[in-house]
């Protein structure tokens, strides 16, 4: 009823749109980035991850002794345990340039740690000598001519050894941005420069009758290695990123900034809007409008601009998300909880803004309408 002041209206909607956009978009990018830190877990799936006791997060490799696989196998709560090699090696493209790739060496018998989605070829062909399965990112990175992408049967070199492509898979993009190249454990050892310890981790499954947690604790007790369940490893990885990088802090700052800008603009504009209309609000009060009625009116108007700003902000975020999904570059995830959370925060901002005005109205004496 009172929101006819176009410039204030635009200011309110603009401020709230900006706040909603900033908060949702930055949260989305942040969640996307965080999800990249645990991509390994989705690209090599296992119930239990056994690593060197010093390892706190999945992107950190501390090599173990080959014999550790057998030590894990000997734990009674373990159904099976297989070795895994993970390392970043240089791939040589046909034109002679080098590109870093993430090599994953799987146990040849079970192929545990396999890629999540195979698009072409058969994983079993990895048992043939000098073969690899590469992900889509590797196809773009390692192809010379985009019009003639790498396909099954083509080869490139890893550390002067031939790597023949037997399949293409789809993986979740990793934080470091290296393409995934899957091969067998033995083959990976051929590609990698020889060192004293080559085993990166051991993937295991609990025996029947044991949960992953029980098996993990038992492995730790008997081998003095570190064993994580999937959930534990994800959590530990995220904790590590929160503790050891400035990423959460910098995103937190931006998100807080969005909130503060929202509160400041909405609160300030709304309050001055109430002040400017005090004469009319006083008149309404004199005419018998109760505090509750005027309060509801103010809240309704605050929520109206809030919902418009929210809609525009989240709409722009989704638009941003769609563009990003197409180019696939910056990380971005928009779980449904995120827009909901933004909605709650925006309505909170609007309530805060309206509350300032409502307080003013409660204290307003209806007799002021007769004063010049």
């Amino acid at each position, binding site marked *: 009823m009172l929101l006819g002041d176009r410039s204030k209206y635009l200011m309110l909607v603009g401020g709230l749109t900006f706040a909603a956009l900033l908060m949702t978009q930055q949260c989305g990018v942040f969640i996307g980035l965080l999800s990249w830190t645990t991509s390994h877990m989705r690209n090599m799936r296992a119930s239990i991850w056994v690593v060197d006791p010093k390892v706190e997060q999945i992107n950190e490799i501390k090599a173990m002794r080959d014999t550790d696989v057998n030590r894990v196998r000997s734990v009674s709560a373990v159904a099976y345990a297989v070795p895994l090699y993970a390392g970043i090696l240089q791939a040589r493209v046909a034109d002679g340039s080098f590109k870093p790739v993430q090599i994953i060496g799987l146990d040849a018998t079970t192929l545990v740690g396999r890629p999540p989605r195979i698009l072409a070829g058969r994983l079993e062909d990895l048992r043939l000598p000098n073969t690899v399965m590469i992900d889509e990112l590797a196809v773009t990175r390692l192809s010379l001519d985009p019009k003639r992408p790498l396909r099954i049967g083509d080869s490139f070199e890893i550390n002067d050894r031939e790597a023949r492509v037997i399949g293409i898979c789809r993986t979740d993009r990793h934080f470091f941005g290296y393409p995934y190249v899957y091969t067998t454990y033995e083959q990976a050892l051929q590609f990698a420069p020889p060192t004293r310890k080559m085993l990166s981790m051991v993937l295991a499954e609990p025996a029947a009758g044991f949960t992953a947690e029980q098996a993990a604790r038992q492995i730790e007790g008997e081998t003095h290695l570190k064993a994580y369940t999937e959930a534990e490893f994800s959590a530990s990885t995220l904790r590590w990123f929160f503790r050891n990088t400035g990423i959460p802090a910098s995103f937190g700052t931006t998100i807080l900034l969005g909130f503060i800008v929202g509160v400041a603009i909405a609160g300030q504009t709304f309050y001055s809007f109430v002040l400017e209309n005090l004469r009319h609000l006083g008149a309404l009060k*004199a005419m018998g409008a*109760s505090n509750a009625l005027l309060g509801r009116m103010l809240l309704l108007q605050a929520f109206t601009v809030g919902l418009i700003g929210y809609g525009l902000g989240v709409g722009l975020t989704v638009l941003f998300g769609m563009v990003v999904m197409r180019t696939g570059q910056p990380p971005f995830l928009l779980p449904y909880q995120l827009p909901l959370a933004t909605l709650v925060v925006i309505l909170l901002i609007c309530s805060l803004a309206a509350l300032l005005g409502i307080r003013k109205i409660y204290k307003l004496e209806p007799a002021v309408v007769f004063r010049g």
Partner: protein
Amino acid sequence: MANLPKTEAGHELAIHVRGVSKTFGQGEAAIHALKDVDFDARKGEMLMIVGPSGCGKTTLLSVIAGTLTFEKGEIDVFDAALQGMKQRAITEFRKRNVGFIFQQFNLIPTINLLENVSVPLLINGWTRRRAEEKAAATLAVVGLAGREKDLPTMMSGGQQQRVAIARALVHDPRLVICDEPTSALDKDTGGHIMELLREVARHPDRCVVVVTHDSRVFKYSDRMAEMEDGRVERIHESFDQYANKQGL
């Protein structure tokens, strides 16, 4: 229900004020705006409260209208006794019984005339549709039929005050309160507004109280209450009586 006494001449009373005092501030700085005020207003009349600036006219109007509390005395307005009434009840009283007309019109500039005039009905819980029907009819009464969709800002001062009168009347209040309704208008326009207000007062169950120091419009009053320094000093039974006393 406070049964108001009739006057000796048999007029029915609309407002009955006895011994009302109002003080602003405390101690040294206290301003005694109303000092033991007694006065009556009758049904069907337009009573004018006149007097020099600062004598307490607006304060008296405010306590009668229920927009200001007072510390001493009794006020009966039609069948409501205002002294000791709870805030909620007073708000309810204003909502049903009082129409307000202000010096600066106080129309909401961003909504059209129809919506402005509907406001008291909406506050009284009418549906929007019914409220706007009634508002359109009331706008026609003040001579503004066909202007329903116009914005107040497009109108002259006199026209805006007509809209304000429509808004003050739309919910059929028994008491209509006007504070300096003509001060912002030129003489002719002010005269038209006062004529309209006098018509409004010609209703067996209504009373119009006008506060003004605009002597150009005194002649439109039925009776005049002359205030001085927080008191109603004299009641003049007609403008002529007032004019004689002033030696005009």
